[in-house]
């Protein structure tokens, strides 16, 4: 079962990475063009999100009729909790970082394959940011 789940993970990752490459989202210049609503706005990336959300929504309709996933004991879907200050603060910080460089986590990781030093540096900083969050929250919980 674990092996099958890993095989699904590998295939899903491959589809995700190929989809990112095909969609144009791996190019920070394109992403910044999409985010630049006051400049020569490039709306094409709205189609990426539209296509992705559309197909993803169909799967949520399907799982409503399923008691459990095919290869696991239960669905681990975040249940709707209140909109918290940390949700909004985190999303705002992420948005600023995304707007500064034009990379979000998926395209940054997929972009490692091309070996550009700037992308490797961005991912190193991103992982550092994740670890920073982990260690600061762990300390807060411990004290």
């Amino acid at each position, binding site marked *: 079962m674990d092996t099958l789940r890993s095989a699904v993970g590998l295939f899903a990752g491959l589809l995700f990475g190929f989809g990112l490459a095909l969609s144009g989202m791996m190019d920070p210049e394109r992403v910044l063009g999409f985010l630049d609503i006051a400049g020569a706005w490039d709306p*094409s990336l709205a189609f990426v999100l539209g296509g992705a959300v559309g*197909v993803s929504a169909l799967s949520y309709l399907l799982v409503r009729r399923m008691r459990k996933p095919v290869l696991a004991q239960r669905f681990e879907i975040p249940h709707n909790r209140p909109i918290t200050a940390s949700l909004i603060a985190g999303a705002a910080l992420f948005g600023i970082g995304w707007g500064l460089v034009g990379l979000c986590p998926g395209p940054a990781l997929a972009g490692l394959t091309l070996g550009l030093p700037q992308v490797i540096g961005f991912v190193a900083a991103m992982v550092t940011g994740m670890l920073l969050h982990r260690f600061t929250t762990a300390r807060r919980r411990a004290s």
Partner: protein
Amino acid sequence: MIVYLSALAGGALIGTSAALLLVLNGRIAGISGIAAGAMLPLSRDTPWRWAFLAGLLLGPVLYRLAFGAWPVVQLDAPWSLIVLGGLLVGYGTRLGGGCTSGHGVCGLARLSPRSIAAVATFMAAAAATVFLVRHGGW
């Protein structure tokens, strides 16, 4: 036209990836969560997360095999912004519990109020940042 079609097709493949993870493994295709969760401590989710990340990195290789060229990646930002941006993206996605994929592709698809709030916030913050950098004289 072809740009819009490849954007739509690429998006549909990303949605299919999220659908497979959900229906088969019961998990959300949130890249920041998968990446953060792939680090220690080890759990039952560690192997499929690393497998997903390996697949994600192989995606551009498949693109190269299919189209004979690597996908375009133009990144001209100065190093100071690259490092600051990376830190903010890493810290912010953990604090906010998701990124474009987890809150965007998966959260919007199930109409999660938290994800709708998160997407509206990071889209607005990103557009405001681009505006200040490109048109605000920063």
